[in-house]
C-alpha cells in the first residue's frame, strides 16, 4: 500500500514520480506503523506524500503501479489535519498581504510573498486531490478510518475555501507574480485535463489583472501633454514667487491653461462624475453582445460587437466591430470591405472597424435589421444575439 519505489520517467519531465518516491522514503512515516499520536514531523511527512502524489495526478504522470499510488487512511487523515492548520495560518497571511507587501523592500521580496501563497495553493490543490482519492478508495473498500478521513477532509475543505477567498481578495497584489515564470511553469506541469480548464489562479485572470493595472496606471497618471504642461509651468514658477493661499482661489476661478492653451473649467475627476451619473440613472450600464458568423464556420471566424444598452452620453461615441479567427484577431480580414446595414467600412489593421453608436442605432432600426456583409463578394454573415 505504501510503496511506490519506481516510476516511469517517460511522461514525467518534472520528476514528480521521483519526488513521490523520495517522499515515501521519509523515515518519519514509520511512526504511522506504531500506535499513538503521530508527531508533527510525521504529519508534515504525510503532507509531503500527499502533495507529491497529487502533483503526479494533476500532471497525469503514469506511476509504475497505479494501485500502489495511494496513501493509507491514517496518513491521509494526519496530512489533512496538518494541512488545514497550515492553511488557517496562510489565510491570515493572505489577509495581511497588503501590509507585508508595503513593508517589503524589493519587488523580489513582494513576488515571493504572493508567489509563496500561490505555491501553497498549488500544493493544497494537489494534496486535496490525493486525499480525496484515498477517501473514495477507503469508503469503497470499507477500510477502517474512512469516516474519520471524510470528516478531516470536510474541515480541510472549509479551511481551504477560506484561504481561497482571502487570496482572491488580493488578486491585484498577486498579479505581480504574473511577471515571473511561476504561473506558466505551473500550467505546464498540469496534464491535459486540468491544463485545459485550470483553476482560478491559473486561468489567466492574474495576467489580465496585471495588464489592467498597467492600463489604469497609464490612464490615471499625467498624460504626455499634461506632463509637458506641468513641466513648463514649473519652469515658470521657479522664476516667480509662490502665490499666497488667499490668491489661490482667484487663480483657480480664473481657470488654468488647458493642454491646448484654452482656459478650462476644472471638472470632477471621471470616477466621481461617473459614479454620480450612475447613481442618477439608477440602472447599471450594460452591453449587448452581437455576433455574426459566416455561412461556413470551419475557420472559426466570427465578428463581434458590444453595444451599450444604455445610450452613451454622445451619439458619436464609437463602437467597435471586431473580427476573430479561432479566438485570435483575424488578420485575414484586414483590408477587406464590410457593410453593416448599408454602412461601409474597411477592416483596419486591428482587424476591426469603428462605427458610431448613432450609426449602429440607426442600423438596428433599418428595415432589414443588422445585416453584415463581408468581403468583396459581400457574403452575408448570420447574426446571433444573446
Amino acid at each position: 500500500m505504501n510503496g511506490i519505489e519506481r516510476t516511469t520517467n517517460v511522461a514525467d519531465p518534472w520528476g514528480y514520480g521521483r519526488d513521490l518516491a523520495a517522499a515515501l522514503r521519509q523515515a518519519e512515516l514509520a511512526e504511522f506503523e506504531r500506535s499513538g499520536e503521530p508527531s508533527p514531523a510525521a504529519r508534515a511527512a504525510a503532507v509531503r506524500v500527499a502533495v507529491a502524489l497529487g502533483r503526479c495526478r494533476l500532471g497525469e504522470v503514469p506511476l509504475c503501479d497505479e494501485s500502489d499510488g495511494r496513501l493509507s487512511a491514517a496518513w491521509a487523515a494526519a496530512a489533512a489535519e496538518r494541512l488545514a492548520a497550515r492553511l488557517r495560518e496562510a489565510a491570515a497571511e493572505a489577509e495581511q498581504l497588503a501590509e507585508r507587501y508595503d513593508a517589503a523592500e524589493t519587488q523580489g521580496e513582494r513576488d515571493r510573498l504572493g508567489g509563496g501563497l500561490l505555491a501553497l495553493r498549488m500544493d493544497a490543490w494537489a494534496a486535496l486531490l490525493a486525499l480525496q482519492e484515498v477517501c473514495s478508495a477507503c469508503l469503497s473498500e470499507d477500510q477502517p478510518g474512512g469516516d474519520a478521513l471524510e470528516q478531516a477532509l470536510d474541515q480541510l475543505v472549509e479551511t481551504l475555501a477560506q484561504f481561497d477567498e482571502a487570496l482572491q481578495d488580493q488578486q491585484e497584489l498577486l498579479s505581480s507574480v504574473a511577471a515571473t515564470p511561476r504561473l506558466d511553469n505551473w500550467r505546464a506541469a498540469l496534464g491535459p485535463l486540468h491544463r485545459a480548464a485550470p483553476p482560478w489562479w491559473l486561468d489567466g485572470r492574474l495576467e489580465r489583472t496585471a495588464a489592467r493595472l498597467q492600463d489604469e496606471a497609464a490612464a490615471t497618471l499625467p498624460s504626455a501633454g499634461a506632463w509637458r504642461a506641468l513641466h513648463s509651468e514649473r519652469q515658470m514658477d521657479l522664476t516667480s514667487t509662490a502665490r499666497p493661499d488667499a490668491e489661490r482661489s482667484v487663480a483657480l476661478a480664473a481657470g488654468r491653461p488647458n493642454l491646448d492653451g484654452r482656459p478650462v473649467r476644472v471638472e470632477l475627476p471621471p470616477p466621481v462624475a461617473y459614479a454620480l451619473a450612475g447613481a442618477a440613472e439608477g440602472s447599471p450600464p450594460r452591453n449587448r453582445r452581437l455576433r455574426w458568423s459566416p455561412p461556413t464556420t470551419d475557420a472559426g471566424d466570427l465578428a463581434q460587437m458590444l453595444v451599450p444598452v444604455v445610450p452613451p452620453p454622445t451619439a458619436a461615441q464609437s463602437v467597435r466591430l471586431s473580427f476573430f479567427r479561432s479566438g485570435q484577431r483575424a488578420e485575414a480580414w484586414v483590408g477587406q470591405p464590410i457593410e453593416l446595414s448599408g454602412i461601409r467600412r474597411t477592416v483596419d489593421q486591428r482587424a476591426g472597424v469603428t462605427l458610431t453608436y448613432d450609426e449602429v442605432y440607426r442600423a438596428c432600426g433599418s428595415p432589414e435589421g443588422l445585416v453584415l456583409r463581408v468581403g468583396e463578394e459581400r457574403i452575408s454573415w448570420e447574426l446571433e444575439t444573446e
Partner: protein
Amino acid sequence: MDPMPEDVDALAAWIVRQQDPLRLDAGLRRLEPLVRRRARCMALARGLSADEFAGEAFTHVGLQLAGRKFDPCRQQRFRVWLNQVLNRLAIDVLRQRARRERQDPLLDPEDGEFGRASEAVVDEAAEQERRDWDRVYLATDPLTSRDMARIESWPPRERMLVLCLCGWHGRVPGGVWERWRAEAGLTAPFPPSGFSDCEDPHQRVGLLGTLWDCDVAVFWKRKQLRLLELDAWWSLLREHESRAAAWEAEEVAEWERLPPPVRIVLLAVSGLWARLPDWDCWRRWEREAGIGVPVPLLVIARKACLQQRVAALQRHLPKRIEVDVAGLWQAESWRLGPASGWPFPPREGRAARSERRHACGCGELSHGKVAEGEWGR
C-alpha cells in the same frame, strides 16, 4: 406510512422508493448537507469553484436518485456511490469548461454578466478618464499647510513616489522636498534628471519601477487613493458646477442621523461621498462604522455598474462588522431619492419621512445583517 430513516444508506434507499414528489423532495433535502459537503471537497480537489459545483452537484444527484440510478440492493454504500457520481460530474464539468474555452476564448471568466465592454467603449472611457485626471494634476499651487502635514504623515517612500507619479513634487517647497528625500534614503537629485522628460506615462512607471524595485502599476492602484486625503483634491471638486450640490452643514447633519454603515454604503456605492465637505468627515464616518483601512472610493466609483460597486465595497469591508452591502443598498437607497432631488427627496417629502422615522425610532434603518443595537445612536 413509510417513515424517513436517519441512516444515510437507508435514507438513499428510501428516496429511490418514493413516488410522491413531496416526500422525494423532503428526502433529498435531508441528504443535501452531505451532498454539498462532498461536492465542495470534490470541486476543490479538481480546481473548480466549490459553491458553483455544490449547487450543480445537488441537482445532479437529485436527478440521479429520482431516476433510480442508485440501486441499494446491488450497489454499495450511498457515500461510495456519491463519490463516484461526483467524481464523474467533476470531470464532465472540467471537460465542458475546456470545450467552452476552446470555442469561446473571448469569454473572460472574471467579467461575468456585466463586466464585458467593447474595446472601443473601454478606450473611450479610458481617454475621458485620462483627460479629467490631467485637469486634476494641472493644479500647481503650493499645497496648504494642512495638506503638507497630511503628506508628512505618509511613509517616506510612499510619499515620494505618489507625489512624483502625479507630478506634484513641484508643489512641495524645495527645502521640505530635500528633507523628505533624505528621510526616504534616496540619492539626490530626486526625481532623477531626465524624469521630467519622460512624457510617456509608461516610461515614468518603468523608470520609477526600476529605481524603486517595485511594480509601480500595483502601487499606484492602491496609493492613488492618498490624493483623496488632500484638501487640494476637494478644492478641485468644489470648483466644478456639480459642487453647487455640495452638502451644507444641515445636510451633513441629516446624514449623520443615519447609522454609520448605512451612510457608508449609500455614499460609497452612489459616489455621493464627493459632496461631503472633506476627507476628515468621511474618515470619521468610516471609523464610526468600524472601518480601519479606508474604503477604496475611487476603485468602487470606477466600477461600471451598481452590482460591481456593491461587490467591491462588500469585499473591502472587514468581515467582523457584518454589513450586508447589497441588503442595505436595497433597503436604504430610497433615501437618495430621484435624481432631481438629491440627496434627499424634496423638502415636504423629507419632512414627512423624517417624521415617520422618528415615529418608529431607528428600527427601520437596521436592515440587512447589521447587528441589532450595535449601531444604535
